[in-house]
């Protein structure tokens, strides 16, 4: 049973525009969320994270928003670049320290 859901398997965005990737979760006890990016034939790489005590965290072009009442997480990329084309996974850190639970991922394609 997926406790972290990424309902959009793919997203296509023009270069320079905003990319918004979404993630929904079911358990209100989740306290720490992360986004990972994955290029083909490579392992996932950490992108940005947010604690449940915050509702926003920003790092350069990447901003993660957390809406606890809606149990919704989103990643904004502004402006989008072709090099951002990858699969993006949202994940939460479970109660067992260090274990991550991943969503199914969203393939982002940024076209020139």
């Amino acid at each position, binding site marked *: 049973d997926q406790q972290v859901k990424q309902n959009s398997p793919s997203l296509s965005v023009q270069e320079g525009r905003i990319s918004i990737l979404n993630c929904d979760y079911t358990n209100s006890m989740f306290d720490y969320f992360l986004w990972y990016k994955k290029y083909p034939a490579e*392992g996932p790489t950490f992108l940005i994270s947010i604690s449940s005590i915050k509702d926003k965290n920003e790092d350069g072009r990447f901003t993660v928003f957390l809406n606890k009442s809606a149990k919704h997480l989103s990643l904004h990329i502004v402006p989008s670049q072709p090099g951002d084309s990858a699969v993006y996974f949202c994940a939460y850190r479970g109660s067992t320290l*260090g274990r991550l639970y991943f969503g199914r991922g969203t393939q982002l394609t940024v076209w020139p």
Partner: protein
Amino acid sequence: EAGVVQSPRYKIIEKKQPVAFWCNPISGHNTLYWYRQNLGQGPELLIRYENEEAVDDSQLPKDRFSAERLKGVDSTLKIQPAELGDSAVYLCASRLTGVADTQYFGPGTRLTVL
């Protein structure tokens, strides 16, 4: 700094054959993870080591899967015998315990069972 190293990168075997994957974590990282990623899914944890101790192996199918990290550095994951449903990418990750929640992943081993 070298990242997480995994080998082989690709492996094709017939069902019922054994297979082993090797992982060398980032130097100094005492926490090591093995994940399995099925096609179209996110990675799922198989086992977590703190140094040489397996502290979370609840998701490891112990009838056919085994893992070891004898000296608390590199690790081996074995499947014996392999089944068709074991076809997946096997990812190794490491983390410096207590410093951050960021896990650093290797490139993975893509296993195909025929």
